Every structure is written in structure tokens, then in C-alpha cells.
């Protein structure tokens, strides 16, 4: 079911993406595909301990190995910046922690934490050198589990970390970095009005973003201190800023050239290798290439938080939710900064509830520092909420979609974290799900159906773009956001629509940091919305100039010219009678009328439209093995307006696949010494083609009034509902409610042998 509009020439169509041919022929250059003359290969030595003091590091043997050009440890880096959170684009960053995550200083805080690095003339020599570095560790007690880390006697990761957000300020350090609370109404009064109250505890495991392309970069440092960085990331400007801070150089000396990016999902919104490669290059005077192995990707980058949540919801007999309470604890990894804020704010956001209380904790543990992962924080809290809502519906014998509809947030609903929603499409997604043939299709034996919804804010932020009109009437669009899933296409479509020229007359380039104004990174589902707005404004700027030039050629006033369908036309009665002048004519004469024609925009884009989705999932459970198979899946989402429906559907389908992996298979397994046991795709099992059915999508379009074409971000929402949709489907099939992810065969079997009866409340 698609809602493709006829009123536009390019918006809502499915043209071939501008970078498509490069990506199907192997031409596209990703992070590891760059090769520079004289290039050295860098490798990292990583801590084998979950928590250890670094007494000393002896690099002499490694440094004297023939072919080794440099060896660095934490002490070779500039001192870390001060330990304060600083605004960096949209989100605050603590650059001291970032610097210490890039290279450990006095302590290694997780299995895989970088402690030293080498650059050598070949990969084989670099690897040999790594083995020759001698580190004297004092192994310290470690803590992996979030609840264990919160106990008063837990091993402490940082003796200067005091819980933020509590009063009075604590006098003892703790692993709880922050406590936050959101409250509206009177929670106790709300529960006392309820006829049914259900309280459940849930756990989710850390899961990795699992992009197929490992982190990779080539960095070349010049004698005058400039850094040329070629790497794959979600934001070249982020890499520029982070490297400048860690290496203590001015931003103007750093140029970052964005490679094609082989998936990110939030995991490439920070730096791991680039500062180290920069330092090695500075020391050796040669370009240094660093690429992570898959094992390193698992041990040292990402993942998202695991969480422990307690959810309590009360409702009256007619299904009105009267109160909702959540207590959340998120693992931040080795440094503070889990996505607990959005976790708290998203938990109950789909619903209009008068009495809400949410308390969140950000907790450090001896695991890699978490990175953003699609709708960071939201899936963890919303998983429990959507399961409890399902249980309430069951208890009250109300259809789960009807129960959600009754309590759904609508335009004008005031969210408990502050804002009042404008036009949103949550109810429309519920309606569409209910109408979908999937919802009423018969189920077979050992099969069950589950429903769940999800909410994500979406963001805007800083974006810059330029549109240049070429002398033959074609156009070049320059933007600054790495294209992870087809954004070049959607931005070019909008440019074509505004300029009134054919899509294939437009070439679009993702520029390096020296060639376009600042852009916040590709994340938060912001690119088609925010950078789209910048492209549209730049195109409108070019159009004003085109009209002014046509006016000069016609010898009339500029405001007597209008732009229609890619050509200038005289506007109004006294403008005169001229034949429309096409873009190519004006462009060809630009030299005579004032020079090159361009438009530019640099904006802080506001007004992102929140996104809502509702998913339907059918599972079949093998009672013998405990294996759960997803046999049918439908994802419904309000997408505002789909500029390129093919890539919008793809976002929904990809998010669902990741959510199903999170629900059923994926988890980090640590041994008793705090070492990661499954750092590879063989044992960390992401869904493969034979694990999944086709994923049906329904694009509901409730336009965002803050965007000329009504765009809302679409990439984050689809990963939120699957965990609960699968759990609710399992419950429908077996009558057992599973509350701990992943719902792997052993857990399913255990719950079956526990009776397989409905959980008492």
C-alpha cells in the first residue's frame, strides 16, 4: 500500500540513486579502499583485561623490529581535555573521556580497550610488533552487569565519578553517573484509580550496530601540522572536531574527506582509530592506514546499552491508562553517557497519560563505551512498556490495537517530557495496522501474533548546502552528509522538484570539510529533513538569482519574473510579453549578466516531526527446540512524506531485521574474567536471509508542516517495536511472557518447561 502523490514531478518517485552505479560495480570507495603512496599500516594493542591499572608499558622491543616506524601509548598523546561535557553539534560530548577511550591512560577499562599502537611497513610486521609490546598490568576487580555495578560495594571504574542529578551532592564516588527523573501528575492517585495494575521487570542485552564495514581510515599529516583524514563515518565534521580536540590542533588544519560508509546505525558517530592514525602519521611523516578487524569492532566499538527496566502501568476497565511508572538502568560502558535521557522520554511518549513517573540511571561498567544505535535508548524502555500494554489488553479482553488507540497521543497531546505534539500520525498507523489483511489472517498451530508501537523524536540541526547552476543548464548540489541509505537520491529529487529540471540533470556531491559549510552528522533521522531543507533553500536562492538574470536580459524588474517549471516567465500584466526563458539559456548567458549563478544555505533546522510506527508480527515456535521463527511481518509508519519510497521502505525493513535480531539472537556474552566470548559473526548471530520473511511496509503520510514537502525522519522508529512485537507474538503462541532478551531457544524452552501458562499478575 503506497501513497504516492501525483502532484509532484520528482518527489515521491523512485529514481535510480546518483551513486548507484558506483555501488553495484565495486567502484565506490569505502573507508578501507583508500591507498596512498608510502602508506604505513597501523595496528592497536588492546587490553586483555576487563579492568586493570597500567603500571608500565615497554615498547623497546617493538620499536626495534625492522619495518616498525612508530610505537605510541597514551603518554604520547596531548593531555586529555578538561573533563566537562561540551555541546558538540546536537549532543554533549565529554572530550576527556573520548580521548581516554581512543587510548587508555592510567587504566584499561574493558576487554579491548586500546593501550598502544604501532605503524609499520606491512600489516604482518605491525602485528608482530604488537605482540612485542610489554604491558605490566595490575588486574583489578571488574563489573559487567548493570545491577551489580549499582551496588554500593561494586568495583569502582572511576574514583572521580560522583552521581549527577541527586541532592545533596554525594561525597562518595559511584558507578552511577547520573540519575534523571521525569514526572507529571500524581502517580499514586493515578494508580489508585486503576482497576488493573501490572508491574514487570525486563532486561535487554547490549547489541552491536553490526555494520558490515569495519571502521577504517587513512590519515596523512603534513610537516606544518595539517591533517588529511580519509575515513568512513557518519559525519566528516564530527571526525574533524573530535580529532582536533584529541590531538589538540586547530580545526582549520584538519580536512576530513568522507569515504562511502558501509553502514553506521549510530555506531560511526564517534572516532576510534582516526586520532591514533593521526598521531602515528605525525611521528612518521607518512600516511597511516588503520582498519579494525571484526573482532576489534565487537570488542572495542559500539554497542548500545543493555538495560534493566521495571515498568508499571495501571488502567481502568474500559482501557484508559491512569498511571505509568518506569525505573530504568542503562549500561553506559566504561565512560558515562548511555542514551538514558531519550530512554526516559520515549518510554510512554506514544500515549496520553496524566500521571507519569520515570526515573533513569546512567551506569558505567567494564564494557566498551556505548555508541548510538538507531533511536538510541528508545527500544530498551519501549520494549517493556509495549509488553505490559499488551498484557493489560489481554487482561481486560480488549484488542491490543484498540487499547493503544484509546490512549494514543494525538495532535495537541502534551508529552510528559514537555512539548505538545503538532500533527502526528500515531492513530493513523494504528488504523492502518487494524485494516491490514495481516491483522485478521488465520494462524496455524504453534503460531502467534503480536503488535507493538514505537516513538522517536527525530531531529533537525545544522545543515549547509550549495546549488551551482552549470553553463549548460545542469546543476551541481554540494552537501555534507555521508549517504548511508540513499540520501543523495532524496536530496537530488527535492532539488529537481524546486528547480523544475530533470533529476538526471543534477549531480550531487557529499563534500569534504573544506568544501561545504558545517553539517551535523548523518544521524537522528535528520538528513532528508534538515539537509533537505538546506538544499531546498539553496535551490531557491539560485532561482532568485536566475529570475534576476532573466529580468536583466528582458530589461524588466526582477520582481516581475517568476520561476515556473524550470523556466523564467514574466509575471503580472505590466511585465511585458516575453517567451519563457529556460534555465539553460539563462545559465549560458550568466557571464554577461553578472557571473556564475549559485545558491547557498547554512541553517539550524528546527521543527523535526516526531515519528510513530506500529508493527504486526507472526511467529511460529518449535516446541521441541525452542526456536522462534518470524513467519510474517508488517511495519506501518507515519513517514510524513516519502521522497523516495523505495529507500523509505528499506529503512523500515532494515530496522525490523535489526529489531528481530535484538529480540531473538543477538547478545554480548562475557566470561567470568570479563572477556567478550563471542566477538565474531559466527557466535554473535545477526539475522541472515533465511531467518526472515518478506517484510511488508505501509507508509502512512501525515505531512510535517515544518518541511516544504512534509518530510519526517524515518530511520529510527522501525527498530523500536520489533522486540515487543515478537515477545507479544510468542505470548500469543505459548501463553508465556518472556521478559529477557534475547528470546533465544534455551530461554524459550525453559519457559515452556516452567508450565507455559500465563504469568500471574
Amino acid at each position, binding site marked *: 500500500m503506497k501513497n504516492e502523490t501525483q502532484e509532484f514531478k520528482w518527489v515521491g518517485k523512485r529514481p535510480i540513486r546518483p551513486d548507484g552505479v558506483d555501488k553495484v560495480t565495486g567502484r565506490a570507495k569505502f573507508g578501507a579502499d583508500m591507498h596512498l603512496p608510502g602508506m604505513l599500516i597501523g595496528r592497536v594493542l588492546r587490553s586483555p583485561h576487563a579492568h586493570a591499572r597500567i603500571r608500565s608499558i615497554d615498547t623497546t622491543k617493538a620499536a626495534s623490529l625492522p619495518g616498525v616506524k612508530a610505537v605510541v601509548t597514551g603518554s604520547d598523546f596531548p593531555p586529555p581535555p578538561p573533563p566537562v561535557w561540551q555541546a558538540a553539534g546536537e549532543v554533549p560530548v565529554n572530550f576527556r573521556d573520548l580521548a581516554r577511550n581512543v587510548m587508555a591512560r592510567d587504566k584499561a577499562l574493558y576487554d579491548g580497550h586500546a593501550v598502544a599502537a604501532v605503524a609499520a611497513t606491512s600489516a604482518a610486521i605491525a602485528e608482530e610488533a604488537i605482540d612485542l609490546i610489554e604491558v605490566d598490568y595490575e588486574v583489578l576487580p571488574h563489573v559487567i552487569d548493570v545491577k551489580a555495578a549499582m551496588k554500593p560495594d561494586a568495583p569502582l571504574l572511576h574514583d572521580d565519578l560522583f552521581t549527577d542529578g541527586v541532592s545533596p551532592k554525594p561525597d562518595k564516588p559511584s558507578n552511577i553517573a547520573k540519575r534523571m*527523573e*521525569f514526572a507529571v501528575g500524581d502517580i499514586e492517585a493515578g494508580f489508585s484509580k486503576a482497576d488493573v495494575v501490572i508491574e514487570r521487570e525486563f532486561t535487554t542485552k547490549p547489541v552491536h550496530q553490526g555494520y558490515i564495514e569495519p571502521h577504517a581510515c587513512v590519515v596523512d599529516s603534513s610537516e606544518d601540522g595539517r591533517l588529511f583524514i580519509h575515513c568512513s563515518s557518519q559525519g566528516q565534521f564530527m571526525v574533524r572536531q573530535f580529532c582536533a580536540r584529541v590531538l589538540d590542533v586547530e580545526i582549520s588544519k584538519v580536512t576530513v574527506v568522507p569515504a562511502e560508509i558501509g553502514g553506521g546505525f549510530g555506531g560511526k558517530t564517534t572516532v576510534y582509530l582516526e586520532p591514533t592514525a593521526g598521531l602515528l602519521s605525525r611521528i612518521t611523516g607518512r600516511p597511516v592506514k588503520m582498519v579494525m578487524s571484526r573482532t576489534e569492532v565487537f570488542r572495542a566499538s559500539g554497542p548500545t546499552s543493555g538495560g534493566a527496566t521495571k515498568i508499571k502501568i495501571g488502567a481502568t476497565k474500559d482501557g484508559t491508562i491512569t498511571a505509568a511508572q518506569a525505573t530504568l538502568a542503562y549500561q553506559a560502558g566504561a565512560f558515562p553517557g548511555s542514551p538514558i*535521557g531519550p530512554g526516559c522520554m520515549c518510554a510512554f511518549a506514544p500515549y496520553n497519560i496524566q500521571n507519569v513517573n520515570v526515573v533513569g540511571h546512567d551506569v558505567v561498567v567494564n564494557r566498551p563505551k556505548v555508541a548510538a544505535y538507531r533511536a538510541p535508548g528508545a527500544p530498551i524502555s519501549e520494549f517493556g512498556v509495549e509488553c505490559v500494554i499488551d498484557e493489560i489488553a489481554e487482561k481486560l479482553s480488549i484488542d491490543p490495537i484498540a487499547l493503544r488507540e484509546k490512549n494514543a497521543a494525538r495532535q495537541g497531546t502534551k508529552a510528559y517530557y514537555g512539548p505538545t505534539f503538532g500533527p502526528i500520525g500515531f492513530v493513523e498507523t494504528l488504523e492502518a495496522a487494524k485494516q491490514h489483511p495481516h491483522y485478521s489472517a488465520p494462524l496455524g498451530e504453534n503460531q502467534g501474533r503480536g503488535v507493538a508501537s514505537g516513538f522517536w523524536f527525530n531531529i533537525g*540541526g545544522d545543515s549547509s548546502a550549495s546549488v551551482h547552476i552549470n553553463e549548460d543548464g545542469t546543476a551541481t548540489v554540494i552537501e555534507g552528509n555521508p549517504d548511508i541509505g540513499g540520501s543523495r537520491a532524496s536530496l537530488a529529487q527535492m532539488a529537481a522538484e524546486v528547480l523544475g529540471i530533470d533529476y538526471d540533470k543534477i549531480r550531487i556531491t557529499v563534500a569534504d570539510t573544506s568544501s561545504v559549510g558545517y553539517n551535523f552528522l548523518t544521524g537522528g533521522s535528520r538528513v532528508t529533513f534538515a539537509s533537505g531543507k538546506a538544499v531546498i533553500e539553496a535551490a531557491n536562492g539560485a532561482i532568485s538569482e536566475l529570475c534576476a538574470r532573466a529580468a536583466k536580459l528582458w530589461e524588466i524588474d526582477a520582481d516581475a519574473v517568476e520561476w515556473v517549471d524550470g523556466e523564467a516567465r514574466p509575471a503580472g500584466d505590466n511585465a511585458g510579453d516575453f517567451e519563457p526563458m529556460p534555465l539553460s539559456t539563462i545559465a549560458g548567458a550568466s557571464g554577461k549578466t553578472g557571473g556564475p549563478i549559485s545558491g547557498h544555505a547554512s541553517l539550524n533546522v528546527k521543527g523535526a516531526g516526531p515519528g510513530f510506527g506500529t508493527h504486526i508480527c507472526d511467529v511460529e515456535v518449535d516446541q521441541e527446540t525452542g526456536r522462534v521463527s518470524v513467519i510474517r511481518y508488517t511495519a506501518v509508519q507515519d513517514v510524513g512524506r516519502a521522497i523516495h519510497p523505495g529507500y523509505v521502505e528499506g529503512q523500515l525493513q532494515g530496522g525490523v531485521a535489526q529489531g528481530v535480531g535484538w529480540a531473538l539472537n543477538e547478545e554480548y556474552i562475557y566470561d567470568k574474567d570479563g572477556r567478550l566470548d563471542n566477538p565474531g559473526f559466527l557466535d554473535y548471530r545477526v539475522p541472515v536471509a533465511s531467518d526472515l520473511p518478506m517484510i511488508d511496509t505501509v507508509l502512512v503520510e501525515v505531512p510535517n508542516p515544518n518541511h516544504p514537502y512534509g518530510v519526517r525522519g524515518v530511520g529510527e522508529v522501525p527498530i523500536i517495536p520489533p522486540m515487543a512485537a515478537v515477545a507479544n507474538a510468542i505470548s500469543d503462541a505459548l501463553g508465556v511472557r518472556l521478559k529477557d532478551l534475547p528470546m533465544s531457544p534455551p530461554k524459550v524452552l525453559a519457559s515452556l518447561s516452567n508450565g507455559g501458562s500465563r504469568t500471574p499478575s
Partner: protein
Amino acid sequence: MAKVVIPAGLSQQFTGGKSEFEINAKTVRAVIRCLDKDFPGIGKAIEIDMAVAVDGEIYHDPLLESVAPDSEVYFLPRIGGG
């Protein structure tokens, strides 16, 4: 007077639990200054990691946004994304 609301985390740390205020100010900057005068330190905390919603519209790096006498001003954590 605009209605200004801060999250419970901030109120516990700075305002002794009070989370709602009536403030006479024309911009978000003036709101923050006014809060900081009564509760020293809260201004810095807001500057570092708070976004603001003024009458339902979220601003990530707030300073100059205008506030009307009947506005609702909510401070909330900043939101990034994946």
C-alpha cells in the same frame, strides 16, 4: 509570566525540588539568567546538556528563542540519534 518547567533531575540538584516557575522574560536566554540568579549553577547545567521546548517546539541549542507572556518553556535533555 511564562510557565517554566525543569526536569526533576535538575530540580533535585539545584532548586530543592521545585520544578515549576513563573518567569517574566522575553527570551530563553533571559529565562536561563533568571533561573541562574536564584539557583547559581543551573544556568551552566542547562547550557551544557539541555534542549528547550517553547510552546511545543523543540530547540536543541537554545539562546535567542522568544518567549511570550503565556508561553510554556520546558527544559529537557538533548536528543541525538543513531
